[in-house]
């Protein structure tokens, strides 16, 4: 979105959601290598079973990276001041993640106008996987 489009948003407005392809085992293997998080719980089903899980599950940071893409599709990355999430449940293989955003606050500081966006990621069953928020500057 351009700065002028962002400036038209009001508190309570929902942003156009972003949906991602289902998470495959290949994605998890590639993300382990690409992200540097080699924890076998995400890539080795034998290890996952040995610690009591039924299967491997996605890196929390993969969901956060998808949500980051959603955020940078809204605002120029240079205008993002903060970005925080809580990982509320495990994301399973096959999950089709949807990124959701809602404007919850607009405040003025001496230097800039800031918009707080409430963020969440849900799967195809509407189970919440990540919740968080981001603050972007837009004026």
């Amino acid at each position, binding site marked *: 979105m351009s700065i002028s489009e962002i400036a038209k948003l009001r508190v309570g407005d929902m942003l156009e959601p972003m949906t*991602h*392809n289902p998470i495959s085992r290949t994605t998890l293997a590639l993300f382990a290598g*690409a992200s540097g*998080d080699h924890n076998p719980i995400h890539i080795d089903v034998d290890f996952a079973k040995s610690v009591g899980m039924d299967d491997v599950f996605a890196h929390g940071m993969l969901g*956060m*990276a998808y949500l*980051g893409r959603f955020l940078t599709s809204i605002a120029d*990355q240079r205008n993002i001041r903060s970005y925080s999430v809580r*990982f509320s449940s495990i994301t399973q293989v096959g999950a089709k993640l949807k990124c959701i955003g809602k404007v919850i606050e607009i405040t003025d500081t001496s230097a800039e106008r800031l918009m707080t966006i409430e963020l969440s990621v849900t799967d195809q069953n509407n189970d919440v996987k990540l919740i968080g928020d981001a603050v972007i500057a837009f004026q």
Partner: protein
Amino acid sequence: MFNPEFIGYSFPTKTVNVEEGKLKFFSQTIGETDPIYLDKDTAKDQGYRSILAPPTYSFSLTLEGESLRDKYEPIGLELGKLLHGAQSFEFFGEICAGDTVIIDSKIVDIFQKKSGALDFCIEEMVVKNVEGETLAVLTQTFIMRH
């Protein structure tokens, strides 16, 4: 269990080179299509030094050169019990391919909830450029389930 004696512990400072190929691989893996994250010329045309690192890439830079086991087993991590509980970023400047960054990490808190069933470790990491300017501050919450 995380060992509470490590509250306040600072890990050795790390210097990391932001490699273009690795950065591009990360962006491709998360399905990024915006060329500022993939193509050097486009990134430069838009005012960046080179390919821009996506917002969460600094987290990967903090992992570079050591495994979770190497870094956290001394403070009590059991990898099979680990969950990433929360993650936050404050941004003060962008990171691009070709940059060198300096990373300082510190354990700021270790505590338990639910009568020890959940074990928390909070770490703060500061990413600076070689001029000493802060680019990002990361706070991560690790949880072990017992």
